[in-house]
């Protein structure tokens, strides 16, 4: 099973990676620009639309409040990234603020699917106290092992796999798989490659100009969709997980080349949460230990030779 066991070091590395991703995203957010946009454009993408008083929303969308929110977030994300104590209250509060900030972004633009899964990952890592144990400034010696360190990773993997299953099932069943029998995919390639920044129009346009290539793309798209529907099986089958990773990674790269749609956050997190990352970090640790051991005698010989040279000189 995926994330059957874990270690404090692996969980710590993942925590650093996820919070660093968010730190970078918040750092590159320009709150002043959002304060300049017309207020009529904004709408809370949640129940806050009904619950939040107008005056509070107006206050929050002010330039100074947004800049304050960004500063608070950077402090909270830095704190969580380093695993400082008290970890859980600060990390949970940071996640709450992050949810507000993300809603502001989505309220002015749209709900970006590439930012939702990293948000779930941050929630899970904040919710478990043990996330602070490894690679932490507060407790650098902690090196516990066991299932409890794998649980936060498993929780994210479940959310990750089901979200992919939702995408596939909606495409397959929600509309009767109609997209596979039309030229919708070619249409998206032409339209999206012109609406998003990317590596050029060549690949998408080439597919749209050749019906046989469009038909092949539809067949490949159906295969990807089937893989997406079965995503939760990644949790229990290593073989399927490998196939899934190869198919979904290739699909993401192809979507980037043809439509300029690239969810880089999901692409990165996929290799963290949908792989047995603990096994990888364990192997790296073993390799480093062996390397240190093999270097050990050579280093000792070198030091002895140095000492002898000093003695002769004396």
């Amino acid at each position: 099973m995926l994330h059957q066991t874990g270690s404090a070091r692996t969980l710590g590395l993942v925590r650093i990676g996820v919070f660093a991703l968010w730190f970078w995203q918040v750092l590159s957010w320009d709150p002043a620009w959002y304060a300049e946009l017309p207020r009529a454009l904004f709408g809370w993408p949640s129940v806050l639309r009904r619950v939040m008083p107008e005056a509070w929303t107006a206050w929050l969308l002010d330039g100074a409040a947004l800049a304050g929110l960004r500063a608070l977030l950077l402090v909270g994300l830095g704190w969580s990234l380093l695993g400082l104590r008290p970890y859980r209250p600060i990390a949970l509060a940071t996640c709450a603020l992050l949810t507000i900030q993300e809603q502001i972004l989505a309220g002015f633009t749209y709900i970006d699917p590439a930012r939702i899964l990293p948000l779930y990952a941050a929630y899970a890592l904040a919710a478990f106290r043990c996330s602070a144990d490894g690679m932490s400034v507060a407790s650098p010696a902690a090196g516990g092992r066991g299932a409890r360190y794998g649980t936060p990773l498993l929780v994210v993997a479940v959310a990750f796999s089901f979200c992919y299953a939702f995408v596939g099932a909606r495409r397959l069943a929600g509309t009767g798989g109609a997209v596979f029998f039309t030229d919708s995919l070619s249409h998206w390639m032409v339209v999206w490659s012109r609406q998003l920044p990317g590596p050029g129009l060549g690949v998408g346009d080439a597919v749209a100009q050749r019906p046989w290539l469009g038909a092949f793309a539809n067949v490949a798209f159906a295969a990807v969709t089937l893989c997406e529907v079965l995503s939760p099986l990644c949790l229990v089958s290593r073989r399927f997980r490998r196939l899934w990773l190869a198919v979904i990674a290739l699909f993401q790269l192809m979507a980037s080349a043809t439509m300029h749609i690239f969810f880089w956050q999901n692409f990165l997190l996929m290799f963290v949460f949908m792989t047995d990352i603990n096994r990888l970090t364990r192997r790296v640790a073993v390799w480093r230990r062996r390397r240190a051991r093999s270097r050990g005698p050579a280093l000792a010989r070198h030091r002895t030779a140095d000492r002898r040279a000093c003695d002769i000189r004396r």
Partner: protein
Amino acid sequence: MRGILLYWTAIAAIGLAVRGQGWRHPWMIAEFAIYLLLLLALARQPALRRRWQRLQRRQQVIAGACFALLLLGQFMPDSRWLYPFVRWSMFAERQPSESPYYEYVVHRADGTTTTLLASGVPDAAALLERLHPLALDADAATRGLPTRAPEGLLADVLRAVAARHNRAHPGAAIDAIDVVRCTVPLHDFRGDASIDRALVRRVASR
């Protein structure tokens, strides 16, 4: 297993109440049946069951509630209610080949033109996504069709874009932004030149 069925039935009942008439669509029921099958397949795995039983009662309740929200989010008629438990639907709806998209052509004071995407405005791609329904509305208004967005919102946003750009690049200030309807003739597509472009509206920056 019985617990999973009960859990699924409860979520289905809430979804039914929320979604109302949308459930009449047989494909929606098929979609929800897929999720039930996936849940049952996972519940049969002893390793996963053991891991679940090892969780504290409180953790089980929180995990169950979060998963229920995840499922419910998928069935809400509007994705903008249960954030961050949103609807996951990508490339799912058939796209009629005649459906238009909109380009925003930026005219600078020095006589050069570019697109809004290439103008250097922060989060331009995300903003374009939000502008699409507004441009659709503006386009409908030119044909005397009813609109939903507040009057003038598209122009206000484009003026804000221009103001922002002009502050950052006073040497290449924006004079006007054209909203252009683009239709792709997919059956006879021969690259960019074959796209049918028509001016919908010109918004002056000042």
